[in-house]
C-alpha cells in the first residue's frame, strides 16, 4: 500500500501569503497539504496564477512560509533560520531546476563556475583539479561536451542551457529536486531531450522529483502522482492514470478536456467542458480522500457519495 512507502516531503497546511494586511494581499498558496514519497515523481499542475510555482519555492525555502509545516525527511524545515548550519545542510539535500534557460544562468560566469557553485559553497571538492574533474563528470552526465566548461551561457542553445542548470542542481547530490516548469520554455523537439535526461538520472541516482508544469500531457507522462492546483488550493490529487481516467473535480475535468491532442480524429470529437470560475470554493470544503489514494477538494456530503 501507498502508505508504507517512505515519505520524503510532507507538506502540512502550508500557507504562503504576500503583502499581508495590505489591500493587495495575495493568498498565493492557501492551506495545502500533501506528501511526496521517496523515489517518485510528483507532478503539480495548474494554470498561471494557481500558486504551483510558489508552492515549489516555499518548499525549498526561497520564501518564508506564512503558516504550516514542511517536513523534509521527518524534520520541519519551514522555520529554520535562513543563514544557519541547518539551512546549509538542507540546501544540499533539496535542489531546484528553473524554468527559463535564459535567465537561470549568470551571463557573466563560465559554465565551469556555474556548475561548480554548489561544490564551492559546500566545500565538496578540494583543489582546482578535483573541481574540474567533478565538473567534467557532471557535464558528461547531462551529455554536454566537457570542452565547453570554459564557455559562457550565451553560446548555448535553450536545451543545452537547461542541461547545464540540471548539472548545477545535481552537483551537490541532492535527494529531492524541484523542477519548476523545466521544459515550458523549450521547443517541442528539445523538451523530450530534457525529460528523458531527467528520467535517466532519476533511475541512476534514485532521486525524487517534484515536477511543476502547466503542460498536462508531459506531466502525465513523467509523474507517478499528480496534484491539480487552482487558486492556491489543491483541488485533486491522485495517481496520474487515475487523474486522467477518472477526474472527479470539475476543474480537473475542464482542464483535461482542453488539452489539444495531435490527432485530428480525436480533436474532431473533443468536447470542451466549461468550468464556472465565479464560485469555486465554499467554506465546508476540504481536501479529503474519497477513494483509496484519490483526494478531492469537496464537502463531506460529496465525499460520502463515493463511499
Amino acid at each position: 500500500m501507498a502508505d508504507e512507502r517512505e515519505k520524503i516531503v510532507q507538506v502540512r497546511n502550508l500557507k504562503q501569503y504576500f503583502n499581508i494586511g495590505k489591500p493587495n494581499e495575495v493568498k498565493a498558496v492557501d492551506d495545502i497539504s500533501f506528501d511526496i514519497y521517496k523515489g517518485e515523481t510528483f507532478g503539480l499542475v495548474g494554470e498561471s496564477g494557481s500558486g504551483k510555482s510558489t508552492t515549489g519555492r516555499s518548499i525549498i525555502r526561497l520564501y518564508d512560509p506564512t503558516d504550516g509545516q514542511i517536513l523534509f525527511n521527518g524534520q520541519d524545515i519551514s522555520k529554520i533560520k535562513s543563514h544557519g548550519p541547518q539551512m546549509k545542510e538542507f540546501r544540499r539535500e533539496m535542489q531546484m531546476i528553473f524554468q527559463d534557460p535564459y535567465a537561470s544562468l549568470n551571463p557573466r560566469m563560465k559554465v565551469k563556475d556555474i556548475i561548480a557553485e554548489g561544490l564551492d559553497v559546500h566545500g565538496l571538492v578540494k583543489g582546482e583539479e578535483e573541481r574540474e574533474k567533478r565538473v567534467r563528470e557532471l557535464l558528461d552526465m547531462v551529455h554536454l561536451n566537457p570542452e565547453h566548461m570554459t564557455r559562457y551561457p550565451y553560446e548555448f542553445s535553450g536545451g543545452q542551457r537547461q542541461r547545464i542548470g540540471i548539472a548545477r542542481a545535481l552537483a551537490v547530490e541532492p535527494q529531492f529536486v524541484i523542477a519548476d516548469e523545466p521544459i515550458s520554455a523549450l521547443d517541442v523537439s528539445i523538451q523530450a531531450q530534457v525529460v528523458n535526461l531527467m528520467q535517466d538520472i532519476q533511475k541512476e541516482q534514485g532521486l525524487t522529483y517534484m515536477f511543476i508544469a502547466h503542460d498536462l500531457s508531459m506531466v502525465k507522462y513523467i509523474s507517478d502522482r499528480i496534484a491539480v492546483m487552482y487558486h492556491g488550493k489543491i483541488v485533486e490529487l491522485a495517481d496520474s492514470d487515475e487523474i486522467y481516467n477518472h477526474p472527479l473535480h470539475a476543474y480537473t475535468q475542464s482542464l483535461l478536456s482542453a488539452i489539444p491532442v495531435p490527432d485530428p480524429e480525436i480533436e474532431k470529437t473533443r468536447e470542451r467542458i466549461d468550468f464556472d470560475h465565479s464560485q469555486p470554493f465554499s467554506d465546508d470544503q476540504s481536501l479529503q480522500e474519497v477513494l483509496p489514494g484519490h483526494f478531492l477538494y469537496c464537502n463531506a456530503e460529496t465525499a460520502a457519495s463515493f463511499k
Partner: protein
Amino acid sequence: MDKILEVKDLHVNFATYNGTVQAIRGVSFDLNAGETLAIVGESGSGKSITVRSILQLLAKNADIAKGSILYHGDDLLQKSEKGMDNIRGNKISMIFQDPMTSLDPTMPIGKQVAEPLLIHNNVSKKDAMARAEEVLRLVGIPNPKARMKDYPHQFSGGQRQRIVIAIAIVDYPEILIADEPTTALDVTVQAEIIDLLKELQQKIGTSIIFITHDLGVVAGIADRVAVMYAGKFVEYGSVNDIFYNPQHPYTWGLLDSMPTLDTSEANRLNSIPGTPPNLLNPPKGDAFAPRNKYAMEIDEEEQPPYFKVSKNHYAATWLLHPNAPKVDPPASIKKRFEKFKQLGGSVK
C-alpha cells in the same frame, strides 16, 4: 477551390551584426478561400517571418530578397506603402501572439476596435462604434456597450486576445493571419480562443493562416498543414496527410517526441537530438541532416526537392527518391499509418 493567395519562392534575409541570416529560404504555398492553413515549426524556423512578409510587417533590417506574394493575382511585394495600407486590416488582418502587449494601453478598447473601419471604410464615427460593439459581442466580451470605454489593462489575458481578434475581424477580412495566438494563454483559455476562431470562420467565411508550434492545436484547427524547418517547408499536405501519413523524418520526430495521453512511462519519449542549424551559414545539403537518424550521403550534398506523396501532399526528403533504401519509421508513426489506412488512405 479559389486560390486567394499564392506565395512563390519567398526568400527573406536579415542583415545582422554577424552577417546575413537567411531566415526564409524558398517558401511557396497557396491559400484557398475559407480554409485554414497551419504552419507549424520550432522557434526560429521562420514561420512568423513568412506570414509577416505577406503584410510586409518585417523589421527594418529585413530584406525580401526574392519571390512573389500574389493576392488575387496581384503581387503584394510590388505594391506601394499606401497600397499595402489599403490591404492591411481590411483585406488581410493579423492577430499577434501576446495579448498583454498587443493593445494600445492608452486608448479605450472600443476605439481600437473601431479604428480599422474608420481607416478603410467611409463610415461615421458613430456607425463604426456601433459596429465595434457588435463585434465585441460576437467575440464574447460580456456587456460590450459599457466596456467599450475601458482600457486594455482592465481585461484578462483571454479577454484581451478576444479584443485583438475583434480588431482583426471587424472589417471582414478575406484572410486572417494568426501568429501563435494562443501560445501565451492557459490551456483552457487556449481552447476557448480556438473554438472562437473556428466559429468566426464559419460566420464570416474568412481564410485563416494559423501559426503555431503546438501540433495538438494544429490537429484541431487546420485543413492543411505545412511543417517548417530552418526557413523551408519540409512537408505539407492535408491535416490527415500530415498526422496519419507523414513522410519527412522531421515530421516523424515532432510527432514522436510528443507524449500522448496514452503514452506511459514504459515507452520512452523519442527526442530529436541536437539543435536547429544556424541560418547565418545554412548547410549546403538538407538542413535537417545532422539531426536526422535516417540521413544519407546525398543529404549532406544536395537539398532535397519536393517529392509528391499524393495529390496536394509533398515532402522534401531524399527518402522518397526511388533509389532510397526503405527505412523503418518510429513505432508511433507506424500506428499513425494504420489509422490512415482505416480512414481510407493509401500508405506506401
